C-alpha cells in the first residue's frame, strides 16, 4: 500500500476532529457535567486526536520523503524519492472526486518540483471557468504546520482547562460596574470558551491544508470570526468588546485588499487552485487544468517566474479584441494568433501591473491577519482576551496564517511585491520593537514583541529567505506561546498585568520564572556562536544572513539589514526588561507578592513541554532531520535559484539564492552581529533593571519627548482615530441627522396625513354606513313589536283568520277573474 496516499486522509481527519468537538460542545456543552466542566475534556481529546493524526502524517511523510542533509542547491536529490512512487497514489486517497491526484505526477523528469499531494475532496460548485472546491495541498510545510498547530493547541487546551476554572462558577467581573454601582454577576462560560477554541483550531488547520485560494479565504474569515469570539470573550467589558470589534474591522481592511488580489487572479487566470488538477472530460480524456503555481512558473520555462498567459492576455485586451474581430469566422484561428502573440506582449511588459496587484492584494490580507504595519494596531488590543487565547490566537497560529500564506503563495510573488513585503516587515519590526521598550503591561510587551517578530518573518520572506521566514515562524510559535502562557501564569498569580507591581517573583514561582527565561533566551536567539543555540538562534541567524546577503546584492536596500540587527538588539532589551521587572529584584508591591503562588500542575506542565521545544526546535539531528531541512523539501519550484527583476520601483532587484547566505563571510558576519546585538541588549537591560546602575526614570526624563512618543505607541491609534474613525463618525452623524431631520420628518408627515384621512373615513363609516344599517334594524324591530299583537295564542281565532282569509282570497280571485273575463 502506498503510505503517502494516506496523507490526505490522515490530515483531513486531523482537520475535521476539532469541528466535531465544536459541534458537540455547541449543542451539548452546558450538559457536559457540572457547569459544562467536561467540555474541556471533549475539546482536549479532539485536539489530542488531531495531534496524534498529524504526528502519524509526519512520520509517514518522513518515511516516504526522508530528510537529508542536502547541500544547498541540489534539491533534486530530495525529490527523487517523491517521483519514484508518484504514479498511482492519488486515486487511493479516499477522495470523492476524480481529480484527486499527486502533483508530483508532473514532476517526472523535473527534479525541481517539490513533493506535494493535491486534490479535491468535494466540489462545491463548477460552472464555466469557476470551480469552488474543498481541496488539499499537502507538502512538507503543510505537515509541519499541522504538527506545530496541533501541538501548541494541545498545550494550550490543557493549560486553559486550568486557567479558565473561574468560568465554572458564577463569575463576578470586577472590571464591569453596572448602573446600580454593583459589579457584574454572570454565569460562567466554560464550555463556550472551548467551543470557540475548537472552531478556531479547525479554521486554522483549514487554512493550512487548503488546496486553493478560495478555500484559504473561507477559513481566513473563519479564523477572523473565531478571534472575534475569543478576544470578546469578556464581552461585558467595554474594552474587550471594543478590542474584538477593532480586530475584526482592521482585518476586514486587509481582507478587502485580499479580495482584490483574488479577483485579479481569478479574472485573469480562471483558477485559484495552487496545484494542477486533472479532470476527466466527457470524452473520457484527462484534461489538466494548470494551477497557479504552474501558470506563474511553468516547468517548460524552468520554473522561472513569468507573467502568466492569462494576465498578459487580460492586459492586452484591446489587441485580443482586434484579433478576435478579424478572425470572427474561425475562433480557432484567433486563438492560435493570440497564443502566438503572447510572448511578444509579455516582452513588452504587459500584465506586469496585474501581477503586482495580485501579489500586493494577497499580501494586504496577510498584513491584516499578521498584524503588519499599518494594520498592526489590533493585535495589542486583542490582549483583552483570556491569556490562553493570546497564546494560541495571537502568537502562534492566527497571526502565523498571514506569514504562512505569503510562504505558500511565494512562487507567485514578483520582485516588486517582495520588496514591498520586506519594507513592510522592516517598518513593522522597528515600530513594534520600540513600543515594546516602554510598555508596562506584561501582555502588551509580548503583543508588540509578536508584531515585531512577525515583521521579522515578513522581512525574511521579502528578501528571499523563504526557509528563513518559515523557520522563524515555527520556532517563534513555540517560544511565543511559551512566553504567553508564562505571562498568563504570572497574571493568574498576581491578578494584575502591570509589571511595575511585580518583581521578585522568581522565588515564589520558580517553574514559571525558569521556563520564561528559556523563552526569553530563545526569542533573543541566544546561543554559543557556531556551536549550539536555542531555537531562535538558528532562525534569527538565517534571517539576518539572508538580509545581509540581500543588502550586499542591492546596496540601496542596506537599511533592511540594519533593521534586522537593530531589531535584535531591541528584542533582547525589552524581553529581558520584562523578565527582570517581573521575576528579579525585590518585590515592588507587597500586596501582590504575598498572594502570588506557583500555578497548578495542569498549567505548569505545558510550560515545561513548550520550554523544551523552544530549546530544541531549531536543532538539526545527525542525519539531517531538522525543521530547516524539512522546509527545504517544500521549497516552491524555481525559488532556490534566487530572483531578479522589478520595474515598479524603477530599478532591478536581485534576490540572492538562500543557500548563498549560509556560506562564508555572510554567515559569520550574521552570527556575530546577532550575538553581539543580543548580548548588548541583555546587558543594557541588566544595567537598567537588574543592577540598577542607571535609573530608567532618568533616561525617560532626559528623552521625554521620545519616551512620550513611544509610550503613546507612536500615536497610531490617535492618528487612525483622527483620519478614519472621526471622519467616518462625522459622516455617520451627518447621515443620521439627515435621516432623523429629513427622512423621518417626511415619513412622519405621511403618517399624519394618512391618520387624518383615516379619521374622516371612520366618521363616514360610523355615521352614514352604520346609521343606515341601524335604521333598518330599528325599523324591523319596531315592526316586530307592533305585529306581535296579532299572535294572540287563541286557536279558534286563528281558525277564524284562516277562514276569513280564505274567503277574502276567493272573493279577490273571483273579482280578478271577472275583471279579466270582461276585460
Amino acid at each position, binding site marked *: 500500500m502506498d503510505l503517502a496516499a494516506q496523507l490526505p486522509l490522515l490530515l483531513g481527519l486531523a482537520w475535521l476532529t476539532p469541528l466535531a468537538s465544536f459541534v458537540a460542545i455547541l449543542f451539548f456543552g452546558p450538559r457536559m457535567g457540572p457547569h459544562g466542566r467536561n467540555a474541556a475534556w471533549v475539546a482536549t481529546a479532539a485536539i489530542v486526536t488531531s495531534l496524534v493524526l498529524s504526528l502519524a502524517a509526519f512520520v509517514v511523510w518522513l518515511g516516504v520523503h526522508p530528510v537529508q542533509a542536502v547541500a544547498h542547491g541540489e534539491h533534486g536529490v530530495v525529490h527523487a524519492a517523491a517521483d519514484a512512487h508518484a504514479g498511482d497514489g492519488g486515486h487511493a486517497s479516499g477522495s470523492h472526486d476524480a481529480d484527486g491526484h499527486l502533483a508530483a505526477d508532473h514532476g517526472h523528469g523535473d527534479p525541481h518540483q517539490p513533493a506535494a499531494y493535491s486534490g479535491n475532496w468535494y466540489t462545491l460548485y463548477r460552472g464555466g471557468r469557476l470551480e469552488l472546491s474543498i481541496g488539499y495541498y499537502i507538502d512538507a510545510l503543510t505537515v509541519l504546520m499541522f504538527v506545530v498547530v496541533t501541538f501548541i493547541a494541545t498545550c494550550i487546551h490543557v493549560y486553559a482547562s486550568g486557567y479558565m476554572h473561574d468560568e465554572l462558577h458564577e463569575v463576578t467581573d470586577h472590571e464591569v460596574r453596572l448602573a446600580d454601582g454593583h459589579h457584574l454577576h454572570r454565569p460562567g462560560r466554560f464550555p463556550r470558551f472551548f467551543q470557540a477554541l475548537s472552531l478556531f483550531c479547525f479554521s486554522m488547520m483549514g487554512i493550512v491544508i487548503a488546496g486553493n485560494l478560495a478555500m484559504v479565504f473561507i477559513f481566513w474569515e473563519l479564523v477572523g470570526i473565531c478571534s472575534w469570539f475569543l478576544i470578546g470573550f469578556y464581552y461585558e467589558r467595554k474594552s474587550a468588546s471594543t478590542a474584538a470589534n477593532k480586530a475584526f474591522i482592521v482585518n476586514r481592511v486587509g481582507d478587502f485588499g485580499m479580495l482584490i488580489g483574488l479577483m485579479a487572479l481569478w479574472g485573469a487566470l480562471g483558477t485559484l487552485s495552487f496545484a494542477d488538477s486533472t479532470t476527466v472530460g466527457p470524452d473520457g480524456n484527462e484534461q489538466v487544468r494548470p494551477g497557479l503555481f504552474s501558470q506563474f512558473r511553468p516547468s517548460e520555462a524552468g520554473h522561472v517566474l513569468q507573467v502568466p498567459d492569462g494576465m498578459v492576455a487580460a492586459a492586452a485586451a484591446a489587441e485580443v479584441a482586434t484579433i478576435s474581430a478579424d478572425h470572427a469566422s474561425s475562433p480557432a484561428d484567433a486563438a492560435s494568433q493570440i497564443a502566438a502573440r503572447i510572448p511578444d506582449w509579455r516582452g513588452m511588459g504587459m500584465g506586469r501591473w496585474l501581477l503586482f496587484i495580485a501579489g500586493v492584494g494577497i499580501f494586504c490580507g496577510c498584513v491584516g491577519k499578521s498584524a503588519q504595519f499599518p494594520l498592526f494596531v489590533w493585535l495589542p488590543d486583542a490582549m483583552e482576551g483570556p491569556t490562553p487565547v493570546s497564546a494560541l490566537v495571537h502568537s502562534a497560529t492566527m497571526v502565523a496564517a498571514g506569514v504562512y500564506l505569503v510562504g505558500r503563495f511565494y512562487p507567485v510573488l514578483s520582485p516588486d511585491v517582495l520588496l514591498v513585503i520586506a519594507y513592510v516587515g522592516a517598518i513593522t519590526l522597528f515600530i513594534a520593537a520600540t513600543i515594546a521598550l516602554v510598555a508596562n503591561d506584561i501582555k502588551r510587551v509580548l503583543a508588540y514583541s509578536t508584531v515585531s517578530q512577525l515583521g521579522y518573518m515578513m522581512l525574511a520572506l521579502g528578501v528571499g529567505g523563504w526557509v528563513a521566514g518559515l523557520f522563524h515562524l515555527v520556532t517563534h510559535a513555540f517560544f511565543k506561546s511559551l512566553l504567553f502562557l508564562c505571562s498568563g501564569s504570572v497574571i493568574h498569580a498576581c491578578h494584575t498585568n502591570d509589571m511595575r507591581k511585580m518583581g521578585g517573583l522568581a522565588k515564589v514561582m520558580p517553574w514559571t520564572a525558569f521556563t520564561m527565561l528559556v523563552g526569553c533566551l530563545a526569542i533573543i536567539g541566544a546561543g554559543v556562536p557556531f556551536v549550539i543555540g536555542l531555537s531562535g538562534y538558528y532562525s534569527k541567524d538565517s534571517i539576518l544572513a539572508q538580509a545581509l546577503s540581500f543588502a550586499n546584492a542591492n546596496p540601496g536596500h542596506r537599511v533592511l539589514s540594519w533593521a534586522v540587527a537593530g531589531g535584535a538588539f531591541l528584542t533582547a532589551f525589552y524581553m529581558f526588561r520584562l523578565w527582570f521587572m517581573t521575576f528579579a529584584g525585590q518585590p515592588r508591591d507587597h500586596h501582590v507578592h504575598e498572594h502570588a503562588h506557583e500555578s497548578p500542575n495542569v498549567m505548569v506542565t505545558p510550560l515545561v513541554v513548550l520550554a523544551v521545544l523552544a530549546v530544541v526546535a531549531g536543532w538539526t539531528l545527525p542525519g539531517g532531520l531538522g525543521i530547516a531541512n524539512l522546509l527545504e523539501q517544500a521549497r516552491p519550484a524555481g525559488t532556490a535559484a534566487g530572483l531578479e527583476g522589478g520595474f515598479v520601483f524603477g530599478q532591478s532587484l536581485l534576490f540572492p539564492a538562500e543557500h548563498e547566505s549560509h556560506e562564508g563571510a555572510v554567515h559569520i558576519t550574521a552570527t556575530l552581529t546577532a550575538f553581539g546585538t543580543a548580548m548588548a541588549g541583555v546587558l543594557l537591560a541588566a544595567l537598567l533593571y537588574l543592577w540598577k546602575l542607571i535609573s530608567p526614570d532618568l533616561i525617560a526624563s532626559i528623552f521625554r519627548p521620545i519616551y512620550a512618543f513611544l509610550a503613546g505607541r507612536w500615536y497610531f491609534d490617535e492618528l487612525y482615530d483622527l483620519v478614519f474613525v472621526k471622519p467616518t463618525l462625522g459622516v455617520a452623524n451627518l447621515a443620521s441627522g439627515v435621516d432623523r431631520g429629513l427622512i423621518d420628518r417626511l415619513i412622519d408627515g405621511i403618517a399624519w396625513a394618512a391618520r387624518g384621512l383615516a379619521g374622516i373615513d371612520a366618521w363616514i363609516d360610523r355615521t352614514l354606513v352604520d346609521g343606515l344599517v341601524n335604521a333598518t334594524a330599528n325599523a324591523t324591530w319596531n315592526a316586530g313589536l307592533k*305585529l*306581535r*299583537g*296579532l*299572535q*294572540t*295564542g*287563541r*286557536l*279558534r281565532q286563528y*281558525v*277564524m283568520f284562516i*277562514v276569513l282569509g280564505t274567503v277574502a282570497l276567493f272573493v279577490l280571485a273571483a273579482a280578478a277573474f271577472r275583471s279579466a273575463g270582461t276585460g
Partner: protein
Amino acid sequence: MTSLSMNPVLGFLIDAPVSVAHYLVVGAILFTAGVACMATKRNALGVLMGIELVLNGANVNFVAFASTYLAGEGGRPLGLDGQVFAVFVILLAAAEAAVALAITLNFYNNHATVDVDRADDLKG
C-alpha cells in the same frame, strides 16, 4: 222541500238527476260544518274532529269529480287521479291525527286540560 225548490240557487237540485253538483253541496256542507266545529270547539278533540270533517268534505269532492258515472256524456272525469288523491288525503288525515293526538296528550300532561284556549304559551 217546497221552499228549497223555490231557491234560485239550489232549487235545481230537487228536480235534476243526481250529479256532481249534489255531491259538491254535500262536500260544502261537510266543509262548513268542519270549519264551524274548528272555530267554535274549545276541546282539542273537537277541533280535531272538525279537521276530519273538513278533509272529508274535500274527499267527497275528489271522489265525485273522479266518477265517470256522474260526469255523464261528454264530461271529463278525473278518473283514478281523484280517487288516488282521496286515498292520500285519508292517509294524511290518519298521520295528522296521530301527531295531533300525541300533541294533545302531551299538552294534557303539562296543563291538565285539553282546552285550546289555554294553549297560549306562544302568545306574542
